[in-house]
Structures are given as structure tokens and as C-alpha cells.
């Protein structure tokens, strides 16, 4: 069993980003960057499967600029065996990313792909489902539990009304939800070890797919600010305001 984990480098989730004043995008210069939290959960899950003897090799892939090597090193410090950087500074969208990933998957032939459910910058929640479609594989999105049993995976998914369990034929694509696991802290010796693990850099052009973005971004605006509210002194005042001013109860 070989597991491939696509990961993305994003602005640290604790940072509140600002829209650029010329509305061309969001200000990301000099912000702290990190591995997308859902991708970190994906790496953790793959490494746990390996530690449990269910998988032989865990390979990370990311598509992005050369600076993305840092998240690949983080993932290898968590326990992944090696990593591939598809290096490009071009604008990327989920369909193009899924096509590039498919090309890598055709070479690497993993039995399982674990992605995050959503990249917390663009909030698309698409890549995993698109990749599964392009490969003709089943998809287990928003997984909160994953079991591998021979030729199939049993996945429990977080859906709006509760939980759903599916049986998927392998190979399959899984996307992680927050409660799948709690990622480990990486220890210093593992960070040192990860520096020696193989990291291949390839150019997307060598993969022979059209990954040009389809959607045109026209502008990014700041959402309307809520008008400043007031503090009430006690429960009686709150109830009076809700009844007489806001008229919501």
C-alpha cells in the first residue's frame, strides 16, 4: 500500500488577512505561512496507517513556488518518506491542480490518496472530488474515520445531518475533516531527519497537462463591516433591547 498526500501551503490560520486596497487580492506578503490544517490531518492519517503496518510508503506532493519546500519538510518531519514539488509560480485553480496531481498519480501508482477537504485560503473544497472524477476513483470526502480492509476502504463522513459510512473500492481518494485525528507535534530530531529525505522538484510542463486557470478573478472586496454594537449591563436590559429595539423575541 502506497499513500499519496497532496498538501498546500497557506497563510497561517490564526492570521486575519486584509484585502489589498486596489482590490486585486488579499495581502499575503510577509505573513506567516503554514501547512493547510486539513492537509496536516491528511499527513497524520497517512503516517498513522504506515505506523500501523497498513501502508509501506507515504509520498507528499505540493504544487507551488519553491518556498513550498518548507511544508514538504514539515510533512516529512511528521513521518512521510519523500516528497515531490511541482514547482510553478503560475496561478492555480482546483481543476488544474487535480490534472497535475492525476499526472503524478499515474507515475507513482498509489493505492490511496488522502487530501484535505478544503484549503483555508480560497475555501474551494473541490480538488479532492475533481481528482477522484478524473481518475474514475471513488471519493470519501469529509472523512472523520478511515479503515483499510484489503481491497476497500470504509470511510465515515461528516454530513449535514450527522455521519454517513461508505465502503469504497480501492484505489480511492479521501478528504479529511477536522475530527479524523489530531496531528502530532514534530520533534527536533525528526526535523533534522526530514532534511535528508528525498525531495524531487519537477516542472509542471513536463507533465503534459493544461493547468491554466479557468475562472477570471475580477476583484476582491472587503466584506461590509458590522456597525459597532453596545454593551448591556444586565439580563433585564438585554431582554428589553431584544424585545423593544431589535424586536427579535
Amino acid at each position, binding site marked *: 500500500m502506497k499513500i499519496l498526500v497532496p498538501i498546500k501551503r497557506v497563510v497561517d490560520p490564526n492570521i486575519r488577512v486584509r484585502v489589498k486596497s486596489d482590490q486585486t487580492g488579499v495581502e499575503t506578503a510577509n505573513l506567516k505561512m503554514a501547512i493547510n490544517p486539513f492537509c496536516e490531518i491528511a499527513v497524520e492519517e497517512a503516517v498513522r496507517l504506515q505506523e500501523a503496518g497498513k501502508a509501506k510508503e507515504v509520498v507528499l506532493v505540493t504544487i507551488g513556488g519553491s518556498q513550498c519546500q518548507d511544508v514538504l519538510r514539515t510533512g516529512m518531519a511528521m513521518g512521510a518518506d519523500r516528497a515531490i514539488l511541482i514547482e510553478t509560480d503560475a496561478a492555480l485553480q482546483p*481543476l488544474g491542480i487535480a490534472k497535475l496531481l492525476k499526472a503524478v498519480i499515474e507515475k507513482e501508482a498509489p493505492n490511496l490518496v488522502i487530501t484535505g477537504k478544503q484549503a483555508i485560503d480560497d475555501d474551494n473544497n473541490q480538488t479532492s*472530488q475533481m481528482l477522484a472524477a478524473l481518475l474514475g476513483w471513488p471519493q470519501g470526502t469529509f472523512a472523520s474515520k478511515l479503515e483499510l480492509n484489503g481491497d476497500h476502504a470504509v470511510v465515515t463522513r*461528516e454530513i449535514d*445531518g450527522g*455521519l454517513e459510512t461508505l465502503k469504497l473500492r480501492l484505489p480511492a481518494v479521501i478528504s479529511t475533516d477536522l*475530527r479524523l485525528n489530531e496531528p502530532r507535534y514534530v520533534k527536533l530530531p525528526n526535523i533534522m531527519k526530514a532534511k535528508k529525505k528525498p525531495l524531487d522538484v519537477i516542472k509542471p510542463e513536463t507533465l503534459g497537462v493544461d493547468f491554466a486557470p479557468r475562472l477570471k*478573478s475580477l476583484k*476582491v472586496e472587503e466584506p461590509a463591516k458590522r456597525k459597532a454594537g453596545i454593551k448591556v449591563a444586565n439580563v433585564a436590559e438585554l431582554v428589553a433591547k431584544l424585545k423593544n429595539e*431589535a424586536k427579535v423575541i
Partner: protein
Amino acid sequence: MSILVIAEHDNQALKAATLNAITAAGQLGQPVTVLVAGNNCQAAATAAAAVSGVGKVLQADAAHYAHPLAEELAPLVVSLAKDATHILAPASTFGKNLLPRVAALLDVAAISDITRVVSADTFVRPIYAGNGLLTVQSPDPVKVITVRSTAFDAAPATGGSAAIESVACPAPAGISEFVSHALSKSERPELTTARIVISGGRGLGSAENFKLLEGVADKLGAAIGASRAAVDAGFIDNDHQVGQTGKIVAPDLYIAVGISGAIQHLAGMKESKVIVAVNKDEEAPIFEVADYGLVMDLFAFLPEFTAALN
């Protein structure tokens, strides 16, 4: 050509968010066609035909649509796509699971979670947990879109009288199989459509204490929500989570109790009409979005508030 909406339903009734997606579809053009794919889903198809603004209902009835498996539904939607300029579904876990798979099979982009239709090819959607609103234009021949239900009114469930047509169902893909589900049952209104929501956070401290919210919910006919910290700590089930990665709500009244107001939580509730925050820390960021803030210990607040609602 038509605008195709994929209904979310349980074979009997439409899920509420389908009505919001139909409204978004109506802003794109006419006619609006609704696909009801299920197993013995006549009742749901009849419900869809009665929705105001619906021009036609396509019913795909087959055993392999008994549960909404993306592997089965995607080829069906693709088989109907040649007549469509747009394909829409609610941005629920159903729509988010299905539509990107459809889009990739059609070799087009997917547009997630739109909050506004600017024109037939231009849409607004939130990014970075709602800290930016992105306007995107799609040159693709068919636009595949999920619709954020809080941003569009529900289409009236009655008043329409669309014809129901049955459509051919592609053979089963057979690569995935439904095993079971555990759906939460509750007498309370559904979180995403409730007029009033009361949510609790880590401040509640335990599953036992979390029940203190029920007194208020009973009095106000409110749904109960939660922060991720409360869900992670096991105070309440995951399907109550409000936020960037949980549910998006926009009730008339949102009461946040013992919630600090992290950006990921705000992403799910800051469009509420009136926000009340109760927190013992006067510096809590939740107060920045609250219309009415009350600095108070929640264990004193909840019984007193419940009593005051009598």
C-alpha cells in the same frame, strides 16, 4: 437550454437549501429545471414541481440513487448537462461532495459557495473565512455552482405546477457503497434555517453544562449551535458546528454563549441579523461583531435569561 438545479432531498421531501438554490437559479435565467434523483422519489419530485419558479422537473428513479453517492449521481448529471448553461446545487455537504466531481467530468471549473449572482457568468464568493469577497467570471460553456443558502431567499414551496419527466439513468458505477448513517434526531428547528440560534462554546465546560442552553432554546424555539472547541470536546455532535468548516447560519437572532469569536467561528455567523454575545472576558473578539454584548458569567446568565423569557 436551461438552468439545472440538483435537488437535495430524502426521497420524500426537499431539503430546505434546495429552495435557496432555486432562487439563485432564477436570477440566472429561465427556464429552471430541477433534477430529483432518488429511489422511489415521486413525493420529492412532486414537491419540486410545486415550487414557484420551477419550469420542469426531471425525475431519475433507480436503486443506485437511494443514497446520494457522488460516483453514481455525477454521471447522471453529466448526461443531462448538454442542455444546461448552469448547474447548481446547495453548498451543503451534499452539493460540495457532488458538484466538483461533475465539473471535472465536464472539464469545467466549479464555483463554490456563491453569495451573489452579478450576471450569468459572474459571481461573488467568500474567501479566507469570509475576510474577502471574490468576484469571479467564468468563460466555461456550463457553469457549475454551489449556492450558499443564507445569501438567497427560499423560493416559495408552493405556487408552481411544473411537469415531471422521467429521465434515463446511466448504469451503476458500482465503485462505492452506502453502509449506514447515524443521523441526529431533534425536535428543534434545523440549525441552518432556524430564526433563532443559541450557540455554546468551550466556556460551557462539559456536555452536562451544555444542556443549560436547552432551557433558552425551548423558550425561544431556537436551534442549538456550537463552536468547534465545544464539538471537539464532545459537548455536542459535530453537525451542530457553526463556522468556516461547519455550517453557515444567518438567523434573525444569534446568541453566542462562552464563545471567544475566532475568525473561523465568525465566518459561520457574522451575517446574522442581530448578534448577542455573552462572555466573562470583556476583551473577547466576539464582542466586535455583537450588537448586544453582555460581560457576565454564563452560569449566572443562563438561568436568569431563561427565567426572564417567561
